[in-house]
C-alpha cells in the first residue's frame, strides 16, 4: 500500500471538530525530494491535514507511515523529531523575541541553558542570506517586521530544523512576486538535497511553476492523489476542487461613465516617514488599484483615507463633504468601509458568532431605542451569508473555526450589509481559493456597478491590474505613476517601482 519511494504516507485520516467534520478519510503520500502540492477550496481541510501531520491535532482515525514504518505523531515535538517542520498558515512567530530567537525557538543553541546567542545569530544570518533577505537583522524584534518579514522568519525557522519534510501552508499569501521567486529558488535548493516539500497555495500558477505532484482535497476528502502537475490542466484542477469548470476571470465591465461624479477625493495626504503627498480621486462605479511592493506603504495610505491613522497633511472628501481627520467613525458614517489587511487581528471578533461579525458596523440599524432586534439582525446576516456563499452557512458558528477564505468573505459581507459609498480593500483575496476569488471579483464588480467607488490594494499584480480601471503605482511611499489600468502591464509596473525606489 505504500507507494514507491514514498517518504510519508497518510491513509484514511479523519478529524472531527465539534460541529464540523474537517477531514473525512484523507490520503496523502509524499516522496523525498519532491514538491507535493495540496489543493482545495477554503475549508477543504488542508490546514487541518497538515496540523495532524505536525502533531498539533490528533486525528480521530487514520495511519501515518514514515519510510514505511507506522508512526504516532502525538505532539509537535514528535513531529519535529521525525524531521517534519511546518510553516503554519497563521503566522506562528512571537512578537517579543528577536528574529534569531524566533528561528531557534524550541531548539535553542545553548551551553548549560545559557543561550549561545552569537552562534544563533550567525546561523540565522546564514539562513536569511539563503532566503535572500540579508537586510533583516537577526537582532530585530519580530514585532517590528511586516507580515512578509514574519513569513520569512517562519521560513528560516523551518529551514533551521534540518527537516526531511517541510510543510508550507500558504507561504506566498503575504509575499509579493519577487519574494515568491526567492522562495521558489530556496525550495528548489532544498528539494535538490532530497528534502520533501508539501506546498499549499491558492495561486494555481505557482503550483504549475514549482509543483511536482498534486493532491486535491474537497470537503475533507481526497479527490485526487498525487497526480503529476504537467499532465493536469488548470481547468481540470479547478473542476476537481470546485466541481465547476470555470477559471477565474475578471468579468468584463462597461467603462465608467465619463460624467460620473467623484465619490472619494484625497488631496496631498501624507504621514511623515511613511508616505507623502498622495492624491486620489475615485468616481462613482470606478475601481482604483494601488500597485507596489510589500512595504511600500499602501496599507498606510488606505488606513489614512479611512481615518484609522491621522494624516500629517491633506484632507479626504466623500461626496464633496470633508471627513473628520483621524476618525474612523466619521468615515464609516460617510460610507467608507475598510477590509483590513490582517483580518484576524484587525478585522474579526474571532470568538463571536459569524452573524455578529457581519453586522458589526451596522447592528445599530437593527435597534429601536438602543434595543437590538436580534431576529432582524440574524435575518440580514443570513441574507449576506447566502449571497456570499459562505461555507458552512451557519450564522452562529464561532468565527475562529472558519477557514481563511470564508473569514475574508465575512469582512466583505460586513460592508455589503452596511452599504457603502467607498469600499476600501486591502489584499482582498489573500488566502482565498479560486472559486471564492471569482465570487469576490464578481461581488466587487457588481458593487461598482451600483455606483460604489472601490479602492483596492493587492500584491498580486495580475489581480490588481485586471480588476482596476485606474492604477496608481506606489514606490517607497510616493505615487510614481497614475494611469488607466489597461495601458500598463506587470513589467512596466515593476520598472516604475524600481525607478521610484531609486529616485
Amino acid at each position: 500500500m505504500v507507494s514507491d519511494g514514498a517518504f510519508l504516507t497518510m491513509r484514511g485520516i479523519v478529524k472531527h471538530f465539534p460541529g464540523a467534520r474537517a477531514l473525512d478519510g484523507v490520503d496523502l503520500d509524499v516522496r523525498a525530494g519532491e514538491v507535493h502540492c495540496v489543493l482545495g477550496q477554503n475549508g477543504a481541510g488542508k490546514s487541518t491535514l497538515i496540523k495532524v501531520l505536525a502533531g498539533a491535532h490528533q486525528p480521530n482515525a487514520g495511519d501515518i507511515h514514515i519510510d514505511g514504518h507506522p508512526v504516532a505523531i502525538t505532539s509537535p515535538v514528535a513531529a519535529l523529531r521525525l524531521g517534519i517542520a511546518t510553516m503554519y498558515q497563521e503566522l506562528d512567530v512571537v512578537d517579543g523575541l528577536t528574529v534569531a530567537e524566533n528561528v531557534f525557538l524550541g531548539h535553542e543553541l545553548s551551553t548549560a541553558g545559557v543561550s549561545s546567542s552569537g552562534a544563533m545569530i550567525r546561523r540565522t544570518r546564514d539562513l536569511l542570506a539563503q532566503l535572500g533577505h540579508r537586510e533583516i537583522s537577526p537582532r530585530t524584534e519580530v514585532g517590528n517586521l511586516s507580515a512578509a518579514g514574519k513569513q520569512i522568519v517562519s521560513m528560516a525557522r523551518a529551514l533551521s530544523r534540518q527537516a526531511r519534510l517541510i510543510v508550507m501552508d500558504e507561504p506566498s499569501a503575504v509575499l509579493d512576486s519577487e519574494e515568491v521567486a526567492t522562495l521558489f529558488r530556496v525550495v528548489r535548493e532544498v528539494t535538490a538535497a532530497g528534502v520533501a516539500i508539501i506546498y499549499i497555495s491558492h495561486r494555481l500558477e505557482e503550483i504549475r511553476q514549482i509543483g511536482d505532484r498534486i493532491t486535491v482535497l474537497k470537503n475533507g476528502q481526497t479527490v485526487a492523489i498525487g497526480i503529476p502537475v504537467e499532465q493536469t490542466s488548470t481547468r481540470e484542477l479547478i473542476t476537481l476542487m470546485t466541481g465547476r469548470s470555470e477559471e477565474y476571470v475578471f468579468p468584463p465591465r462597461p467603462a465608467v461613465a465619463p460624467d460620473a461624479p467623484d465619490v472619494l477625493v484625497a488631496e496631498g495626504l501624507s504621514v511623515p516617514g511613511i508616505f507623502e503627498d498622495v492624491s486620489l480621486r475615485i468616481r462613482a462605479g470606478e475601481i482604483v488599484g494601488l500597485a507596489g511592493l510589500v512595504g511600500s506603504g499602501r496599507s498606510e495610505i488606505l488606513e489614512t483615507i479611512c481615518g484609522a491613522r491621522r494624516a500629517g497633511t491633506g484632507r479626504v472628501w466623500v461626496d464633496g463633504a470633508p471627513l473628520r481627520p483621524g476618525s474612523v467613525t466619521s468615515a464609516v458614517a460617510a460610507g467608507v468601509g475598510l477590509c483590513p489587511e490582517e483580518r484576524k487581528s484587525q478585522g474579526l471578533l474571532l470568538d463571536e458568532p459569524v452573524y455578529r461579525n457581519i453586522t458589526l458596523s451596522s447592528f445599530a440599524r437593527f435597534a429601536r431605542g438602543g434595543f437590538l432586534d436580534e431576529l432582524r439582525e440574524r435575518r440580514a446576516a443570513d441574507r449576506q451569508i447566502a449571497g456570499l456563499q459562505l461555507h458552512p452557512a451557519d450564522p452562529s458558528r464561532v468565527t475562529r473555526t472558519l477557514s481563511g477564505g470564508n473569514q475574508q468573505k465575512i469582512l466583505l459581507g460586513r460592508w455589503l450589509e452596511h452599504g457603502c459609498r467607498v469600499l476600501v480593500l486591502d489584499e482582498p483575496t489573500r488566502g482565498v481559493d479560486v472559486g471564492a476569488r471569482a465570487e469576490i471579483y464578481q461581488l466587487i464588480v457588481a458593487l461598482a456597478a451600483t455606483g460604489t467607488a472601490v479602492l483596492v490594494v493587492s500584491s498580486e499584480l495580475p489581480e490588481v491590474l485586471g480588476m482596476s480601471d485606474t492604477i496608481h503605482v506606489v514606490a517607497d511611499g510616493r505615487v510614481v505613476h497614475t494611469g488607466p489600468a489597461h495601458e500598463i502591464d506587470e513589467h512596466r509596473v515593476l520598472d516604475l517601482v524600481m525607478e521610484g525606489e531609486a529616485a
Partner: protein
Amino acid sequence: MSAFTDPVPPDETVREGTRRYTLPGSLARNLGLVIALLVLCAVGWFTADVRFLDGDNFVTILRFASVIGVVSVGMTFVITGGGIDLSVGSVLGLSSVWASTLATQTIAGDVHWLVVVFTACAVGAACGLVSGILIAYGKVVAFIATLAMMVAARGLAEIISNKRSQILDVPPFMDFFQSRPLGLPTLVWVFLIVAAMAWVLLNRTTFGRRTIAVGGNAEASRLAGIRVRAHTVALYVICGFCSGLAGAMMIARTTVGSSTHGSLYELDAIAAVVVGGTLLIGGRGTIVGTVLGVLIFSTLNNIFTLNNLSISAQSIVKGAIIVIAVLLQQRFANRPGSSSP
C-alpha cells in the same frame, strides 16, 4: 449590498441556522455555577439544617450579596470591555463619605434622601470618568490607572471624613432602605433591579454589543466604526456609578459613611465576576454568572458563620471551594482557551 442577496429564500436559512447551531444557552453555560451553588446549599442544609433553610437566612444572604453584587455588576461591564477596575472599593468608600458628609454637615437639616443617593452615584461616576479618560485617552494601562484611583480615592475619603464614621441622620433615607416591599428588603430589590437592567443592557442593546466587540477586539471594532475610546470611558463611568450606588447602599446598611467602607471589594468583585464566567481578557461577559458568583461567595460566608469552623480553617476551605466552583463553571461552559490568564 442588497444587489446580491436572496439566492435562497432567507427565512429557510435563518430557521435552519439558528436552530441547529445556537450557542450553548444561558442555562447550560451557567449550569456549573448553579450546581456549585446547589452543592453549597446542600452542605448548608446538612451542617446547619433548619437554621440554613430558614427564609430569614436566605434574606440575610441576599442582603449581604446586594452591596457587593451591585459593585460586581458594574465590574462585569468593565471586564467584558477588556478592562479592569481596581478602584471600586475605594470609590465606594469615597462616595459613602461624600454623601454622608454632605447630608450631615454641608446641607445639614432638611436634605431629601434622594440627594444622598444621587450624590453617591455622581461621585462614583465622576471617579469612573477620570479613570476612563486616563485609560482611553491617556493610554495608561487600566490596571495602573485604577490602582492610582484606588489609592487616591481612599486618601480623599479619609481627608473628607477626617477618618471618622459619619452617622447619617436622614430618617426617610433609612425608612426607605429598611422597608421590605413584597417581603424582600429594599437593598435586595435594588440589587435585583440593577442586575436586571444590566442584563438587558449587556445582552439586548447596542451598547452591550459594542462592549463585547470592544473587549473582544478593540482594533477591529475601531476599524468597523465603533468609537472605542468613548465607549471605554462609558464603561468606567458605569462601573463607577455602580460603586457609588453601592456606597449609598452601604450607608443604608450601616447608617454611616466611612472611608473604610469597601476595602478589598475590588478583589471580591473581580473574583465573583471571573468565577461567574466572564473572561478576564474581555469579549465575553455574563451578568447571570456574576450574580451566581456573588451568591456563591455570600452563601459560603453564611455557611461558615453558621458552623463553628476555626477562622483560619475557614480560609483554607474557602480557597479550595473557589477553585472547585471555577472548575465546575469551566467544565460546563466549555470555553476554548480558558487556560489563558
